[in-house]
């Protein structure tokens, strides 16, 4: 569920939005409360100041007692109304109530006598009418001793104000939340649209149209690197796909020739009655051709396995000199038949490599050196070291390879023109050689002079 970028963005946004919005609302609420209650406090303070100043004036005239009575009765407005929510009360230091506002006196109610100092102190309590009541107490010294002034103001009005603020917030919050949520939903959809378009474009590319590319120009700047690396990947994929297709097509093409030889032999031979000798000849030819096909199929398999890296190279310590000795043992007879001399030079060279693979490499190279040699020619095999690499050079005195074909001989199914009277092979040998050498981290070099001979040099990393 949290795999969706859009959902993630929306959730994160709304979470942060909620915290910030709630914080802001709380801050505003407490500010408002401070202001509203401060207003009440100021009102009480001025009331107390007024009462105290009147009493002070009367005290100077020696009329304090009288005035205390006066204060209890002479109040007008809110203070004169019974339980109006606006009260005051003056208490002696002994706790005796000396004066009460008519709003209290009429109901015979009293404000609680709270501890008091010369500094005004405020408190919120439950008032005589069960309403929330803000109470201020302050002590002022008079000739008859310190008098405690207690004023009380109902918080009904400020609480009403705060209540309606709360209600507004509670109503506005979900609306804003919803609107912002919708907004962010649309915005993320809009922001993610290029990504969607990009993925649609990608999804339309299959193995059928690998040559198509994602449009890098139209893509958003943020997606350009992705588009570009995707296109690079497509190019590589296409090339590899093409190579595979080409190989498959080449391979089936190569199999058609021996197949048609076999088929033609069957068709023609069965076309009429023949002598046993004729049948023998035909079957022998078919057998030879089948062998050629088997060889071809084996090599195609080796190549596709090398391609797929399905052949596991088992590196062991190998003496190249020894591998060549083994190879020569197999080749001797075919070399002798054509009076080709084989010289080996150089000492033992150790590498780490796959014995089967390395043997295949030199079987091919030495085999070619004999096959494409002239009768009575020579093959030199030199082992040694070069640039810290183990090197084996196989040189022949054969027909050579024209310069323009040198870079093609390692291509699959490539054969130097068969018109020179040499029996052609599968056209895969050198391709396999190169694949194996490269799989070992080595390289192969070729030099040739048409009519004089060719020289193949294999360089392999030395054994540790």
């Amino acid at each position: 569920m949290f795999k969706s970028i859009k959902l993630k963005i929306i959730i994160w946004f709304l979470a942060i939005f909620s915290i910030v919005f709630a914080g802001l609302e709380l801050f505003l609420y407490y500010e408002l409360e401070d202001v509203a209650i401060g207003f009440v406090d100021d009102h009480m303070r001025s009331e107390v100041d007024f009462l105290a100043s009147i009493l002070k004036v009367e005290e100077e005239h020696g009329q304090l007692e009288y005035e205390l009575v006066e204060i209890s009765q002479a109040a007008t407005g809110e203070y004169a109304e019974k339980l109006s929510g606006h009260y005051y009360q003056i208490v002696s230091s002994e706790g005796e109530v000396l004066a009460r506002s008519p709003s209290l006196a009429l109901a015979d109610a009293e404000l609680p006598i709270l501890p008091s100092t010369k500094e005004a102190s405020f408190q919120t309590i439950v008032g005589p009418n069960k309403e929330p009541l803000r109470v201020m107490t302050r002590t002022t010294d008079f000739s008859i001793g310190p008098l405690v002034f207690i004023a009380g103001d109902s918080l009904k009005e400020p609480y009403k104000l705060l209540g309606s603020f709360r209600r507004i917030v509670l109503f506005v919050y979900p609306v804003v939340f919803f609107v912002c949520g919708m907004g962010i939903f649309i915005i993320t959809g809009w922001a993610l649209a290029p990504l969607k378009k990009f993925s649609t474009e990608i999804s339309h590319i299959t193995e059928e149209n690998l040559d198509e590319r994602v449009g890098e120009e139209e893509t958003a700047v943020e997606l350009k690197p992705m588009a570009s690396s995707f296109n690079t990947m497509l190019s590589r994929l296409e090339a590899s796909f093409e190579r595979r297709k080409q190989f498959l097509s080449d391979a089936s093409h190569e199999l058609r020739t021996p197949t048609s030889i076999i088929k033609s032999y069957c068709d023609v031979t069965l076309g009429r009655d023949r002598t046993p000798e004729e049948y023998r000849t035909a079957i022998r030819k078919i057998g030879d051709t089948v062998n050629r096909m088997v060889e071809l199929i084996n090599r195609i398999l080796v190549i596709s396995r090398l391609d797929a890296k399905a052949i596991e190279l088992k590196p062991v310590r190998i003496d190249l000199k020894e591998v060549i000795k083994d190879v020569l043992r197999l080749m001797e007879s075919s070399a002798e038949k054509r009076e080709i001399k084989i010289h080996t030079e150089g000492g033992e060279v150790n590498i780490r490599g796959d014995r089967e693979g390395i043997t295949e490499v030199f079987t091919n190279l030495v085999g070619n050196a004999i096959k494409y040699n002239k009768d009575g020619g020579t093959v030199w095999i030199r082992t040694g070291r070069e640039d810290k690499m183990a090197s084996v050079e196989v040189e022949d005195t054969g027909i050579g390879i024209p310069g323009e074909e040198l870079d093609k001989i390692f291509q699959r199914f490539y054969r130097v023109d068969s018109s020179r009277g040499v029996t052609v092979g599968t056209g895969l040998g050198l391709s396999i050689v190169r694949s194996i050498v490269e799989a070992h981290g080595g390289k192969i070099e070729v030099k040739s002079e048409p009519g004089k001979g060719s020289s193949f040099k294999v360089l392999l990393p030395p054994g540790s």
Partner: protein
Amino acid sequence: MRILIVEDEKDLAGIVKQGLEEAGYVVDMAHDGEEGQYMAENFPVDAIVLDIMLPVVDGLTVLSNIRKKGIDTPVILLTARDALLDKVKGLDTGADDYLTKPFEFGELLARLRSLLRRKGQAKEAVIRIADLEINTASHEVTRAGKNIQLSAREYKLLEYLAYNADSVLSRTEIVEHIYHEDRDMDSNVVDVYINYLRNKVDKDFDKKLIHTVRGAGYVLREENP
């Protein structure tokens, strides 16, 4: 009928040659494009079986070269590729037919016969001249419903005359198309075989079909009385 095979795969060329010879054709072989083109241009061949993938000069180039020189010998392309584009390209270059390897040998023979008939304007496998019928597929010859037994050489000669019915063929032409280049044949041999043929085809019938054109050669035709 003389066929040129241009195929670099010697085993294949060899067995196709054998098969065609056994079917009564004279066969020449070339193993690369250059040699093939030379033979197509200089030998009097009646049809060419041409591989596309050839060393030195590829088959399509050979084909386009000989067509440019005005040689309209029927050509069957033989190839290991069966991509449609290749077929189209081959036929557009001037090939008359197309066979994909591996092919049925019988199909090659049938297509060759069809091409040779097309050349002689005949449409069917059986060529009819008056009451003479020559089945080019089974090599059976009948006249007025009667079976005529011919030797291989006699048949080749009759077939060649029949494919080119109504045109006069010189002795040299006949020798070149019926007998192999290797065997240096005296053109008098033609007279000998024409005689054999006359004995088998014309002798017992009033209407003669094989005619001598003095100083030119022979012609097989139904003469209007």
